[in-house]
């Protein structure tokens, strides 16, 4: 019985890890944009949704050409990332860039407007129905891992997320663009004076965040097997919650917040009831924000006047 109990625990842990990785990938987009320009990009969930549709189209085109599973996955992933990055760039240029320097509420409203626009756009040009998403990840039976059954897709989702996040940390820490991003985060004016092209770096941030969301979108859509125009909504809210949980603006915080949220939901479902999944997740959020108002890894900065 105890080994049984441990196996169940482990399986719930894998579920939480998978879900958490997806939350983390999307939370990174929220937190990077917030860190650099102090704006919540409400259209981020919609970029995730559009990336899923692009992946679907690309995968469809590839399978008509008769490519193998792995090449389809890679091509769909690349196409979705590039397309999502282009959307991120355009959204920033259309909805946020013209409002830079205005009141904080104006870009918030244009972000919500952008989100509604993108959703309606997909309804019009694609469909309002659910469409099936092909399984892009080779299908082999579940296998035992550390004594609990895990699905290969779940393992791949976790692995890819870890690789992507490590790459991002390296990029932020050591590349020139990453350093420029951190510089702008600290002091935009000073960075500009020192020769950093602020507009370009902000665009780059949007593009990176959107590409990360695309990775999450392709992985989870392939796992679930269906998408529609509304999939970005709940995911967006959960990822935003994860970003706040970890401390918005902090990149390790987003990753940690995503994992904690995913695991909490999974264990709440497994040991209590799936009815209370969201109750537990958001109670935890409230609890953490009471104890650490800036989030787990966030630093509270004082507004300079």
């Amino acid at each position, binding site marked *: 019985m105890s080994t049984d109990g441990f196996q169940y625990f482990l399986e719930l842990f894998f579920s939480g890890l998978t879900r958490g990785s997806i939350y983390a990938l999307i939370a990174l987009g929220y937190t990077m944009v917030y860190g650099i320009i102090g704006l919540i990009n409400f259209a981020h969930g919609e970029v995730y949704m559009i990336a899923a549709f692009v992946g679907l189209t690309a995968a469809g085109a590839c399978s008509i050409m008769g490519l193998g599973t792995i090449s389809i996955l890679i091509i769909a992933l690349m196409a979705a990332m590039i397309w999502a990055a282009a959307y991120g760039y355009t959204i920033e240029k259309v909805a946020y860039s013209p409002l830079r320097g205005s009141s904080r509420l104006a870009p918030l409203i244009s972000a919500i407007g952008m989100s509604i626009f993108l959703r309606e756009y997909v309804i019009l040009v694609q469909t309002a129905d659910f469409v099936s998403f092909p399984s892009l990840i080779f299908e082999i039976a579940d296998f035992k891992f550390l004594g609990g059954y895990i699905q290969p897709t779940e393992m791949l989702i976790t692995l890819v997320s870890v690789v992507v996040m490590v790459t991002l940390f390296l990029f932020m820490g050591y590349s020139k663009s990453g350093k420029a991003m951190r510089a702008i985060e600290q002091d935009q004016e000073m960075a500009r004076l020192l020769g950093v092209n602020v507009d370009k770096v902000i665009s780059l941030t949007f593009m990176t965040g959107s590409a990360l969301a695309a990775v999450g979108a392709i992985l989870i859509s392939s796992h679930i097997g269906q998408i529609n125009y509304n*999939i970005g909504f709940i995911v967006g809210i959960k990822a935003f919650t994860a970003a706040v949980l970890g401390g918005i603006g902090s990149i390790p915080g987003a990753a940690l917040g995503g994992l904690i949220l995913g695991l909490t939901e999974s264990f709440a479902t497994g040991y209590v*009831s*799936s009815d209370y999944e969201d109750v537990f997740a958001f109670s935890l959020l409230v609890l953490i924000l009471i104890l650490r108002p800036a989030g787990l890894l966030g630093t509270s900065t004082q507004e300079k006047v």
Partner: protein
Amino acid sequence: MKLSPFLLKNFKFTLLLLAGLILGLGLTSCEKKKGASSNEANTPASEPIIIGVAGAHSGDLAPYGLPPKHTVAIAAAELNKAGGVLGRQIKIIAQDDVCKPGIATDVASKLISQGVIAVIGHICSGATNAALSVYRGAKIPVISPSATSPELTLEGQNPYFFRTIPHDAAQAIVQADFIVKHLKAKRVVVVHDKGDYGKGLATLVKKELESKGVEILLFEGVTPGAVDYSALIRKIAQANPDVVAFGGYHPEGSKIVTQARKRDIKAAFISGDGLKDPSFIKIGGKFVEGYYVTSPADISTLAMTIKVNEQLKAKGQEAGNFGLQAHAAFTALIKAIETSKSTKPEDIKTALMQNKVATTLGEISFDKNGDVVGSGFSVYQVEDSKFKQLAW
């Protein structure tokens, strides 16, 4: 038309002529009546049999009430043309209750005073319930084509009430029956989508299963649109049920069954009519093969139904949601009068419960509560990417 100059000039004569004609007509009709009443001694009365049709014929809910009125009118006209029943013609009196309980009781009193022997109606459950209190006193058989509130028949306080539509809990009862009798399940997991329809159905199924002694291992709600359901799937795998009953709509249904099959859960899946949508199969693909779905039986291919639909179409009318149920109610009523050779409430009631009648809903009968048997929910199974109706 020009009157002839002669008639115009002799105005008095014209009046006399008219009076004579009218009197003559009256005499002949009197004579006819006399003949008819003398007939009465041998065979049952040949005065028309009066049947009431009550429901919302105006107002917001008229789209529910008018089709029953139309189909009954068509059925009655056809029957009269063919010679009526027991040698008597049928006369339909339609009354509008606007689906309001207060008006429904007035309508009921009015119909009784006009001498109806039975009523087809009322349409809304609330109005029907109110009207039944009046009909009960007068022992008038009432057949509703559309009132689905379970209380109307379950409490047994309306011995003269019947309906040709299954009540709200019928789908849950069919599901539970199927799970117990056909799938022979002992351990069941019930999942729902927290919505009105899904949770409502799931709760009823759970109640029915428990009353049949089935063990409910889990009763869980999921959030529609959540990223994935793998934690719940693992919980189901851990519980190891024979059957998973899901209350909700097709997007969540296909997601859950897909993940469950990938996780190698072998349990049978069953759901309500919320899943009987082509896109369920389109999206679920091979993972939804073998999925059971309860849904109203397909009656569009019955010859009688096709005929009634054509008759309605010729008049520019439609069967709507309850038109065919009303037609079936009329057919069952006439058959009851015919077989019992009587228009007395007790005889009609007994005959209604004994007869099996071919109607626009297929072959139907009524159980001891007055609920329809043989119409309503069927079980379908996904087979080769199609919903196939099961006979069980």
